[in-house]
């Protein structure tokens, strides 16, 4: 938050300079009113060959996965792995405690009494899978990330309210400040802004 004001001041002082001298660009941000326009724009941008881009919405829009050409996520295998690890650890913990470390002979009953070990194994399976789901989601999303160039764009705060954004990043090989601007502008967005690094 603190970074924003000096950078914004920088931007206004640099604005009149020729384009080669302006600060490095993160990308161009187009703002739409509704998810339908955003999905249509994302499809056209994907069709035009842009790949390094992302959409920002106030709620999940499932059509964007297809429009942006996003593949499968690693979430499901990750959570499965978490569950299997939890089950294995949970069961072996009980086996170790009840059979090896602290065996109790109660009327000659078997030490490895597996049916009694199921409830705790189950609970630890769920616990581990749940932790993998949440921590895995945060890690793959790169969160927590206190600052991101997009937060430099003043209108971007509306992405958590009622506006829908498409950002084509400068890192895309097809990106050019002027052509990409014109490309985005043709799709009738509410605004197109430059996002500085």
């Amino acid at each position: 938050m603190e970074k924003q004001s000096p950078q914004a001041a920088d931007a206004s002082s640099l604005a009149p300079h020729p384009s080669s001298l302006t600060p490095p660009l993160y990308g161009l941000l187009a703002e739409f009113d509704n998810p339908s326009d955003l999905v249509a724009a994302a499809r056209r941008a994907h069709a035009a060959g842009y790949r390094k881009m992302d959409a920002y919405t106030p709620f999940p829009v499932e059509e964007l996965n297809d429009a942006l050409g996003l593949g499968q996520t690693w979430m499901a295998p990750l959570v499965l792995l978490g569950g299997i690890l939890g089950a294995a650890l949970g069961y072996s913990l009980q086996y170790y405690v009840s059979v090896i470390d602290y065996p109790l002979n109660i009327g000659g009953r078997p030490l490895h009494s597996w049916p009694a070990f199921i409830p705790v194994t189950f609970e630890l399976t769920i616990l581990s899978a749940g932790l993998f789901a949440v921590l895995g989601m945060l890690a793959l999303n790169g969160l927590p990330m206190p600052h991101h160039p997009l937060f430099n764009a003043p209108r971007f705060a509306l992405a958590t309210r009622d506006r829908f954004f498409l950002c084509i990043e400068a890192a895309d090989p097809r990106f050019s400040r002027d052509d990409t601007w014109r490309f985005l502008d043709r799709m009738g967005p509410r605004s197109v802004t430059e996002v500085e690094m």
Partner: protein
Amino acid sequence: MQFQDKPASEPHSPFIAPGHTFGSVTEKIGAIVLQRPTGWGWLGGFAAAFTLVLLLLFAVAYLFVRGVGIWGVNVPVAWGFAIVNFVWWIGIGHAGTLISAILLLLHQEWRTSINRFAEAMTLFAVACAGLFPILHLGRPWLFYWLFPYPNTMGLQPQFRSPLVWDVFAVSTYMTISFLFWFVGLIPDLATLRDRSQSRAGRIIYGMLAMGWRGSARHWQRYETAYLLLAGLATPLVVSVHTVVSLDFAVALLPGWHTTIFPPYFVAGAIYSGFAMVLTLAIPLRAAYGLHDFITERHLQNMAKVMLATGLIVAYGYMMEGFMSWYSGNRFEMYTSVNRLTGPYAPAYWALMLCNVIVPQALWSARIRSHTVALFIIALIVNTGMWLERFVIVITSLHRDFLPSSWGNYLPTPWDWATFVGTIGLFLALMFLFIRLLPMISIFEMRTLLPAAEVKGGREG
């Protein structure tokens, strides 16, 4: 979450009042936290609840000094209020998970406006529940002995005991409930960060939102994680109250040693939980003018779930009586007769009135749509479910197998102070929650709006 399925089944009575936009939903729910001044109603309510928290602290401090002898527990009734309250609170928590996880998997969109505070209710109820077994330990500061860890005493827990299963079930339940609630909050915390007018608000909500920016890539993983968490929480919630019921059912005591316990406990948990959701939702809706979001239809649906689970619980009572007669076991039969006519008979008949007879009024659509009547029935069911646990715990214990070991149980003022204190703790946490966090999931409410539907074919 399943917003794209919505228009297919246009409901006759909407889950969200017409005329709302993405912005208006955001403003209306966000303003309760960000703009609305702290009113006298909130301050008065919080002060009253906090007074009870002080009472709880006092009762617990005295317990630490003097030991469990200040309670009414003794042989043969060694499980008094502590276990009654533990089971009652943990049962209340179950509706929160049911609403957020099971109804999500079943595509019941009406859950959206009640899931957030139902999850908070779960969290706070489990926190209250968790206190009791620990306080009941005698030396509560040694509670960590319950977990397996290498120690100089060379001891390990007994994994064949349901009481150890309970430790794992309840701590897993607490952790997963917290994760589910917090993950659901992240996008709304980002909304609050971006809407907050104060620097402190931006910093605190900003840190909690962890830099969420609503990226499509993030949403994709988020949705998968949320759905998988719901899938994990669903069997978990069933397992937790099953394990709680096994604390009783694995014991050989008449009245406890029965296979109906797990399903009957799970149904009872959902029953009491929905009663608590209604107890909270009806006043909240009136106090904060949330009629647009928590509509008549939500209350109707919750009343129906209450009626259905209430009938399962009534079946459980019937089966308990039948099986004690059918078993031919004189101790079992005596326990049933003792419940009906013994020293705790008033509690049993009050339980029947509260849990079986009064809720039958919910068959009437007029009563279901009368909020005051519904609120009163919910309170009665809450009381009834507490009495149920009281009857189960006390009547089975107070008549031992030998008449020479019979005894009675009477709660002391310290028992009551601890119980009332946890109600205060629960309400105080609820008051803080509705003041500091959005009590309705803002981003999920946006998905219910007609404008959330993506128009235009698959190819643009």
